């Protein structure tokens, strides 16, 4: 245990000084100017999108205006209009709200499934673990995109919730694996054994001992996932298996660029959405990376 290299000596110091949880994250954020900037920008954007969309009238925005097709950005339509004469800016805000909501919800549901199964699998091990892992292996090799596409063509009234449901079916596996491996490591730590010898029931150990120690990993993972999940429907929209057009999303806007005319000459229709997604993802990523660093420092504590 008298480990000797520099890392350990540094660890030693951090051991003494590291505060817990949120404080570390906050400190890490403050230290990393880029992450802080991203964080502020992100919060700003999200607040703006949600609050602003609250005041928007979706019916008004999605109203077809034949006299105003593909208008360039102007005073009325800040980002011009699309091929239905609909205001792109309004669609962008509502679309961003929808995409964000989808991203959040998918992240949430996949996390819920992934964490539950991952923790159970890792904590109990044995045949429970075996069964869950084989199940995950099975899902991992499924041609997800293909099955999603088949699924989409089956559901008649395909809407946001169906979408979230379908995505959640497939996207929890890597999370479950991550959580499982971390739980496996955590389970070997003496504090879990200690709790067992103190007569604490398993579910309590999982909920109140193990999970809090995984929280930083979970937060980091959720953040990074969120970035991915926001863009998740763009590809499907392109193939024509995305959300219905009546539900504006960033994906719908971006997939207008499939039409080369729009791509080359009507940049205002799709470029803002593409940039917004880029900025959102970059921001989330930078924040996520900062969180990751914070989590690593925490891990050294363990």
């Amino acid at each position: 245990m008298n480990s000797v290299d520099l890392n350990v000596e540094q660890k030693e110091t951090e051991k003494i000084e590291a505060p817990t949880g949120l404080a570390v994250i906050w400190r890490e954020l403050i230290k990393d100017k880029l992450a802080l900037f991203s964080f502020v920008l992100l919060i700003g954007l999200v607040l703006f999108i949600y609050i602003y969309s609250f005041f928007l009238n979706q019916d008004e925005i999605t109203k077809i205006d034949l006299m105003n097709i593909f208008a360039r950005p102007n005073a009325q339509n800040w980002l011009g209009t699309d091929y239905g004469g609909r205001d792109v800016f309004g669609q962008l805000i509502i679309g961003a709200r929808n995409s964000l909501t989808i991203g959040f919800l998918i992240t949430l549901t996949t996390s819920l499934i992934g964490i539950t199964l991952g923790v159970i699998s890792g904590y109990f091990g044995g045949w429970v673990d075996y069964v869950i892992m084989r199940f995950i292996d099975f899902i991992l090799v499924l041609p997800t995109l293909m099955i999603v596409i088949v699924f989409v063509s089956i559901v008649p009234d395909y809407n946001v919730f169906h979408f979230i449901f379908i995505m959640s079916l497939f996207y929890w596996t890597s999370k479950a694996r991550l959580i499982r491996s971390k739980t496996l490591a955590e389970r070997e730590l003496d504090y879990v054994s200690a709790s067992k010898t103190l007569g604490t029931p398993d579910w309590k150990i999982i909920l109140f001992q193990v999970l809090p120690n995984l929280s930083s990993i979970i937060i980091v993972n959720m953040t990074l996932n969120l970035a991915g999940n926001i863009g998740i429907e763009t590809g499907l929209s392109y193939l024509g298996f995305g959300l219905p057009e009546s539900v504006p999303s960033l994906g719908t806007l971006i997939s207008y660029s499939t039409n080369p005319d729009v791509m080359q000459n009507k940049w205002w229709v799709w470029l803002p959405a593409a940039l917004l997604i880029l900025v959102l993802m970059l921001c989330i990523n930078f924040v996520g990376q900062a969180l990751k660093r914070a989590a690593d420092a925490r891990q050294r504590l363990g």
Partner: protein
Amino acid sequence: MPLLKVDNLKVHYPIRGGFFRTIKDYVKAVDGISFSIHEGETYGLVGESGCGKTTTGRTIIGLNKATDGKVLLDTGSELVDLTKLSRKEFRKYRSDIQMIFQDPYSSLNVRKRVRDIIAEPLRNFESLTPEEEEQRIIDALAKVGLGPEAMFKYPHQFSGGQRQRIGIARALVINPRLIIADEPVSALDVSVQAQVLNFMKDIQKDYNLSYLFISHDLGVVRHMCDRIGIMYNGRLVEEGTTEDIFENPQHLYTKRLLSAIPNTDPKKRYENKKLREEINREYEAKTRQFFDENGRIYDLKPISATHYVAMP
């Protein structure tokens, strides 16, 4: 009647393989050991890494499942075989046996305040009002020489030795009679180690505790234990009082172990080396006398009232 009697305890782990995870073989981590611990006594379990000493300790407290054998606890009114209990049933006896872990860093949940760490067993076994609970925690902290202000701190705000003491406070708070100490000081620096060892001796006297002291460090064991069992390959090779073992080792393995301890007298280094070489030669020459044809260690046989050696 001893407080705890371990009778022919076996812990075998299956090695699984292939697709259907069929059992291919067993690792015999503990392969039939028996010993007992009396009230107020410190029993040392010594051996090199992988000899099964930790598994034994963990099996007694129910962290591992026993394959065979008994662990009988004298609860005062009856003898309970701990190996036969489910985890739920075991809860009744948790307050009799407690454990101290090796690594003071991983054995305390870094996310919890000291207060919650120590309160964990109380919340499991006793329904106390917050005031009562707080009093018990303060008492427990006082027992291990920490002030009540420690309650609100997190583990990382303490040194290794202090953390180990918090671990002990957690074990003590429900007034156990037996504490299994699994390498309690091997992760600590010498100076801190002394602190914890002294302190363990103190509370043993104060509360008439029994220890099962698991260690690979013969110096520490000699310092702490009344009786010692030497383990090798999942079996006991020799058992006796500290004096029996250190002054009159009988089994070759014990001798070899003792001779390997670096002597703190530099003047004796050549002497020691010679002794080691001699014992090694003897070990190689006489192995067959101490192990049966399968390489298994013989059962213990008494050579005096307190001293047992694994001989044919």
